[in-house]
């Protein structure tokens, strides 16, 4: 059980590192240039949407991982 929790913690850590990589490589250089003074606002909006998608993906992956790691123990 305890090793399962340590494994889950480690998996969360790896997902944070990978999510960070995606954030920096995709969100970092992302710019929009056709909308004049609204460029930064639209770019920020798109960044927010991408970030939300990443967070939702992170939660879904964690839920799958939780069910995998604790499959034997979770009788409830």
């Amino acid at each position, binding site marked *: 059980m*305890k090793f399962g929790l340590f494994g889950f913690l480690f998996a969360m850590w790896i997902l944070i590192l990978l999510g960070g990589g995606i954030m920096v490589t995709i969100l970092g250089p992302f710019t929009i240039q056709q909308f004049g003074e609204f460029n*930064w606002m639209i770019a920020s909006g798109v960044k927010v949407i991408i970030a939300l998608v990443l967070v939702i993906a992170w939660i879904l992956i964690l839920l799958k991982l939780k069910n995998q790691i604790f499959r034997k123990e979770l009788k409830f």
Partner: protein
Amino acid sequence: MIELIIPAIISCITAFFIVFFMTPPLIKFLEKRNFAVKDMNKKEDVMVVRPGGPALIAGIIVSELVLYAFLQLNEILVIIITTSAAFVIGYVDDRKVMGGWFKPVTLAVAAIPIIAFGTYDTGLSFPLFGMVQIPVLYIALIFFMIPITGNTINSIDVLNGVASGFMVIASFSLSICLFIVQNYEIAIVSLPLGFVSLAFYKYHKIPSKIFPGDSGALTLGAMYGAIAIVGGVEIIAAVALLPAVINSFLFLSSVKKIVEHRQVKGTPVDHTDDFRLRATNDKSAPVTLVRLILAGGPLSEKQVGFAIFKLAIFSGILAIITAFMMGVTF
């Protein structure tokens, strides 16, 4: 760096001894007023007073003011204001039962001083990959971060000594990380959090003489979040807090809405005849960190507490590794 040593020592001593000497009279005061609740994990009818928040906030405010006298950083004022606001929010919740929305919404308001003083950087630093600038998203992150850190510490405050002991490990890990990333001033500013938690742990550890209450747990959590933001170590702070994050994640993913623990139906944990803790098979009860730890079999309250501390030490080590990785980029 050398000039920071004296303020650091004075503030740490102040933080520790204010809580250490203020808590016993606070316990007597609360006993006289009968501000006590039943310790649900004891066989006998043991009543424990709460909240311990006033002692914690006194230690934090005085020690941070000592640091402000030396360093005069706006970051210190922001930490004091945000943490004090979180204490007041928690104290209101200690005295009067509020709805599930109350703490997240009001704690988001408590984050306003961070924005008003401009004590944040809109860049989010990640290990190995570097920094990403997210000006608008970062403001939203500030409003989310204080409620999240406040409530995660509050949600882990379920057994004797766990919240304060966990904060000792998490906050000292965060301080070490701040030293590693060479943010020395905020590292010094973060040290009192560990020392107030350590002093409070003496009275909170099993068998508890006092509970922190919402005012204590939110104070510790909000200060942790504020340090993470002003220190620019949000990701590292999240890693050090992972066991508490797991607890909130498991709870929310099983309940599927934001509710107070007292509103939850079902019993996740009950007791054996010798009053050890045991995970139930109640499908309507939320999945929690304690319930997962107990899924392998019944354990004493002390054993569960130490299992949580081991997880906290493990995530503290991961946070320190993350801090070292901050200096490395592909």
